[in-house]
């Protein structure tokens, strides 16, 4: 005789059955390739090899000994911190402006989303054209204004190239951050704001003691998500500088691509990918913790 199942158990079974297609798709499209790539990190597999050969931790040892990899880690850190920080400040500032009431606000809000709507590579090529040392718009403007005597080769200098890719990524990401903050700002209680104003709060104190505390959960989530996205940044950098000059804009993402598709060293590429995964896992873990805590 079949045991009698409670309604809750049956609901759970049905619920699980409904997730099976998604779980299968996840297993085939994400989990399996990820595990394969994880496994490959312990193998040597170059273009001349018919099959991978197990080498244990050798790929990781080589990567960690390589001084160039130190440069790549440093570049990644600088890029993620500056890009996330700048995007946060500008996104928040722009959201505060867009939350005010003025003529043409709706149109300006729509225009503000443009960098986010454009394909990343288009934005990257636009940025590369703006910063071009020979015929770039930035140089032309600065020369016209008399702020420069000679064109500056922004993308040719390591510091200039770093700044250019950071600015391009910030420009791309600000609309998304702004949209999050704008949504958050619209849930700030008008009564609370009015009461604070009646109590004599200045604009700055209003922002500091009412608006920002209200937005804090959004700020944390957006910062973590932004950091994760910036850790994965590839297209904008590759289209602008291809990781140069002299590795100055090579991040972990670019290094994986170079190892895999320029040096044809799949083992090393996978090992860098594994390290990259654990780097992203830190903000990802933080994000999930916030998410679960909120659900609890």
């Amino acid at each position, binding site marked *: 005789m079949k045991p009698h199942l409670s309604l809750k158990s049956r609901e759970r079974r049905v619920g699980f059955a409904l997730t099976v297609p998604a779980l299968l798709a996840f297993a085939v499209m994400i989990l399996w390739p990820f595990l394969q790539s994880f496994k490959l990190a312990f193998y040597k597999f*170059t*273009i001349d090899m018919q099959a991978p050969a197990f080498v244990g931790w050798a790929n990781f040892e080589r990567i960690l000994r390589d001084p160039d990899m130190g440069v790549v880690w440093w570049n990644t850190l600088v890029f993620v911190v500056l890009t996330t920080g700048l995007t946060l400040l500008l996104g928040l500032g722009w959201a505060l402006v867009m939350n005010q009431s003025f003529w043409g606000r709706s149109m300006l809000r729509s225009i503000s989303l443009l960098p986010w709507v454009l394909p990343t590579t288009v934005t990257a090529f636009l940025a590369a054209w703006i910063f071009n*040392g020979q*015929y770039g718009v930035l140089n032309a403007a600065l020369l016209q204004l008399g702020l420069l005597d000679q064109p500056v080769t922004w993308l040719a200098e*390591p510091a200039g190239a770093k700044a250019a890719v950071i600015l391009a990524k910030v420009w791309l990401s600000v609309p998304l951050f702004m949209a999050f903050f704008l949504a958050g700002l619209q849930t700030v209680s008008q009564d609370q704001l009015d009461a604070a104003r009646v109590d004599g709060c200045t604009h700055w104190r209003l922002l500091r003691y009412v608006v920002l505390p209200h937005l804090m959960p959004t700020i944390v989530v957006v910062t973590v998500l932004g950091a994760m996205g910036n850790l994965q940044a590839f297209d904008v950098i590759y289209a602008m500088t291809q990781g140069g000059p002299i590795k100055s804009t090579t991040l972990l993402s670019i290094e994986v691509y170079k190892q895999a598709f320029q040096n044809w060293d799949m083992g090393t590429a996978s090992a860098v990918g594994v390290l990259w995964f654990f780097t992203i896992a830190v903000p990802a873990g933080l994000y999930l913790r916030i998410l679960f805590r909120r659900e609890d």
Partner: protein
Amino acid sequence: MLTRRTLVKSMTAGAALAATGVRAQARGLTYVGWSHDEAASKPTLTAMFDSYRKANPDVRLEVVGFPWAQMQQNILLRLRSGQALDVVQLAERWLPQFAATNRMVDLNEVYGKGYLSRQMNTGLLTLGDYRGKQLGLPWTAGSIGMVGNRAVMQESGVNRVPQTIDEFVDALRAIKKAKPQSVPYAMTTKNNNSLSPDFQVWLWTFGGELLSDKGAVVVQSPAAVRALTFMADMVKEGLAAKDIDRPDARRMFAQNQTAFYHDAPLARGFARSNSGKGTDFDRFVVAVPTPVLKNGDAPRSLAWGHLLTFFGDGKSIPSQQSVQAQFAAHLAMSDASQLAYFNSQGLFPVTNSALAQLKNDAYVSEWSAAARSALRDEPSFWPNSADLTAIVGEEVQSALLGLKTPQVAIDSMAKRLQAKMAELPKA
């Protein structure tokens, strides 16, 4: 009367016939390349493929295209996943990497060495040669050589193409004086894949080398330091500029902002389109032998070309009558195809007969003459060429940007190249 048995019999016979028919009809052939996907060469190559299809209705030609920058990884992925790669377009510098897969066919065994050398100059055939095997059939060949803009030269009072390095520097100074906003020599100063060839041309000109035939690193030499010092000094003096890659140089050349730069023979085609003047611009474009240290030295340039290659199982060899061999011959050994490609793209033909028909074109003859002393890209001879190219490019760029002295850059280049070469298994 149609019984069930006769029906089954006739259906079986019909299916068998159909299968035979399909087999006879569908001699499949897969071509993989990048040029036919580029807007400029698409019409010409599509016409070539169509003419082949028309002449060979029994062949089902499948044309697969990838952008140039993604060709290598796509070939590799197709190889590893067992997809067809009957005829594949390769850049000559990719040959060693794919030769390492042991899946490439020696074309001497397909066409016969004698036949190929009757069709093409042996110097051109070396483009497709790797360790004694003819793994690639030259489709278009030339060199990365120097090209000059006669309009800029004349405007600046430079009435003669400079022959030696001293004359070259004098000419650049005259151009800079006459046109202060110009970049007289659009030397490549970014992108490792362009920096490495340009550096090698000057390195050879000054008498240096990167690697010996056996793979020993020999770049740590006074000649290499002199070559890099010469390049860095040009940037310092404003005769060359930072942030220049080949496409930038092409644009500036066509806009009369540059007098000299290094490029493949299709430089004239780029000048036509970038100037907006079409063939009217041809009179300003002149092939310039790379200036030499002293009169009598051979002008140096870097061998360049596109190859057609066959990938197989590493064991069986297709015959000269095979679909693969016939198709590759249609593209690379037919004068009609070769001249059509030249006329539309300015890409030099490779067959003796097609070249003979262009002997009155000064640009072709001068370039070809200068290309006779072209040398193979040195890193490309080794399976880890991408690593070697990146090292050379990065160290050269460090010196050009003033981040390292030429001596320090060369020392560092030698040390890094030695480390990479040491990783290779002993042959």
